[in-house]
């Protein structure tokens, strides 16, 4: 049993730069938690504080039911996989795997069993006698995972472990790590994972839950589906999803059916939107619509925005249209078979945001006011 909890954890550096602003996070036993955010959001710092590689300047970190603030990394019951693997360059693979156990004076036969077991799982048996410099990136990666696995830690920490691999290998390692986590969970061994990445694809595909961070604050913690469909604020809305969500200033009329105005164009919506609106500081809001949720409608359709296509990216199964509506740039994704080059003749297009997938943010607080 090892849940991980962070309470009011702070990190202030010597130069009084506050990197982490009192964050609270609960990771359940067996959960695969992904920390994601742009560079500089302190996700790695947070992970390193959990590991004990960075001191925390305030707050408390618990693993299971013990407070680990006071403990050196080796006593925290964690294992970590580093971005650049951090294999010991002078040790053969088998010694890299067993170093942690040897330090703890684990009996020899137990170490041997551990090495055999782990190298079997990760298919690195034939690499055991090699030095790290004789390994390819993918092999080194597996050894690094093995080094974590062999210690049977309560919590696994991954610090952008796939970012040094090429795209193909990254995809297969993604699957491998998720499978490994499932296996561990089924074997009901310790399997709590905290996984740091800047790549939202990794975050969305691997995480049971995802913690989105920005500038040392947690912006939202939720499972992938919730995160995608119900972003709590503008940042999460913009960060998750590709291409990025369109975030455009609009004026909201609340009297009767809600209506949104961009420049001189107004589109009216129905009950679905009306029912989920909550209070805001004003009526000048930010509309958030994902490019996939801007629907192209026939030219004669009422109640839609009209704009001009400025640029097209044809990618086969889908097409990105860059559209100008009253001076605001929209990205629109349409299925490839809806695309017809003749659309470009005059460039005119009419677009209707899908009501159920439309978000409104209060520009003052950046909070989503359409989640009620």
């Amino acid at each position: 049993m090892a849940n991980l909890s962070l309470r009011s954890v702070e990190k202030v550096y010597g130069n009084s730069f506050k990197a982490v602003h009192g964050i609270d996070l609960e990771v359940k036993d067996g959960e695969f938690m992904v920390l994601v955010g742009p560079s500089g959001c302190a996700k790695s710092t947070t992970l390193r504080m959990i590991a004990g590689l960075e001191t925390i300047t305030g707050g408390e970190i618990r693993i299971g039911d013990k407070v680990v603030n006071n403990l050196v990394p080796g006593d925290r019951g964690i294992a970590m996989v580093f971005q650049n693997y951090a294999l010991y360059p002078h040790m053969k693979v088998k010694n890299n795997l067993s170093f942690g156990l040897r330090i703890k004076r684990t009996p020899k036969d137990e170490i041997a069993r551990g090495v055999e077991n782990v190298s079997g799982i990760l298919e690195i048996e034939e690499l055991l006698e090699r030095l790290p410099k004789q390994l390819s990136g993918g092999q080194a990666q597996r050894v690094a995972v093995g080094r974590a696995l062999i210690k049977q830690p309560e919590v696994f920490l991954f610090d952008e472990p796939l970012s040094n691999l090429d795209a193909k290998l990254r995809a297969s390692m993604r699957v491998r790590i998720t499978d490994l986590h499932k296996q561990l969970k089924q074997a009901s061994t310790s399997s709590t994972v905290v996984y740091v990445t800047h790549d939202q694809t990794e975050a969305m595909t691997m995480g049971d839950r995802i913690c989105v961070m920005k500038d040392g604050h947690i912006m939202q913690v939720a499972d992938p589906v919730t995160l995608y469909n119900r972003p709590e604020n503008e940042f999460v809305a913009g960060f998750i999803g590709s291409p990025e969500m369109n975030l455009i200033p609009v004026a909201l009329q609340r009297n009767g059916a809600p209506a949104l105005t961009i420049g001189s164009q107004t589109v009216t919506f129905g009950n679905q939107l009306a029912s989920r609106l909550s209070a805001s500081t004003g009526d000048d809001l930010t509309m958030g619509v994902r490019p996939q949720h801007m629907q192209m409608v026939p030219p004669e359709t009422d109640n839609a925005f009209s704009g001009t296509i400025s640029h097209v990216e044809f990618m086969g199964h889908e097409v990105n249209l860059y559209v100008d509506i009253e001076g605001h740039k929209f990205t629109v994704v349409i299925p490839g078979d809806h695309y017809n080059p003749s659309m470009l003749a005059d460039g005119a297009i009419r677009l209707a945001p899908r009501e159920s997938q439309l978000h409104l943010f209060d520009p003052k607080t950046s909070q989503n006011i359409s989640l009620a």
Partner: protein
Amino acid sequence: MGGEKQWVGLAYVAPYVIGLLVFTAIPFGASFYLSFTDYPLLSAPIWVGLQNYIELIFHDRTFHRALQVTMTYVFITVPLKLTFALAIAYVLNYKLKFIGFFRTAYYVPSILGGSVAIAVLWRYIFADIGLVNMIITGLGFEAINFFGDPRYALFTITLLRVWQFGSAMVIFLAALQSIPAHVYEAAAIDGANKAQTFFFITLPLITPVIFFNLILQMVEAFQEFNGPFIITDGTGAPLRSTYLVPLYIYDKAFRQFDMGYASAIAWILFAIIMVLTLIAFWSSRHWVYYAGDKRS
């Protein structure tokens, strides 16, 4: 650079090739030849076969004493100097302010150490009434006759060399700094304490540099001349307790002009250095980690 005619490269290294032949290769061979001759400089060398070596190995008491002193000197100086250099480099290898200042301060003796002025200074420091004895007597102890007592005389010239640990330290420091932080972090995660990290991670990773320093310092120490020569006026006093082999070679060659015999001494010294270097190289594959080529 591709496509060049081969003589272009040769033209650039020509000065070296000439220098190598004239000032190193030919003298090297000549020295070997001379070591089998009797050559009092004024007349032509006369071939005497192994006579010089037989004399040196079986009869020359002065040589035996000099060799014994030299060995003692090298085997005390080199490990002491390297240990000091590594220890200070280790202390310096932290994110401390003024690292640059301390590194500079520790490096100064290496810059000046080989000079006559420092050897002169050493005489004054360890003189009967010198700096060290002033401090010793000031603390209420009895003054030590450093240059009069064979037990201490070698110690003073040993100290002179150990004092110059700065250059080895700078090399160690650069090596320590080149160990990536994440390797230490991985060790911390694996539960290694400070001592374990030092002995299992740090030390193995800098073995190439330890090896390099070891060879360099050993070769240098075997050839030490300035310090003892100036401190003892070339006598190696007291009782030849600081009379290193290079001093003996100098006396034989340039005071007594016994060039053949001096060459033979040089060759014995060379052979000893060679054997120790080869032992070091041979043993290195058991203890030196080579970061070199990818894939074996």
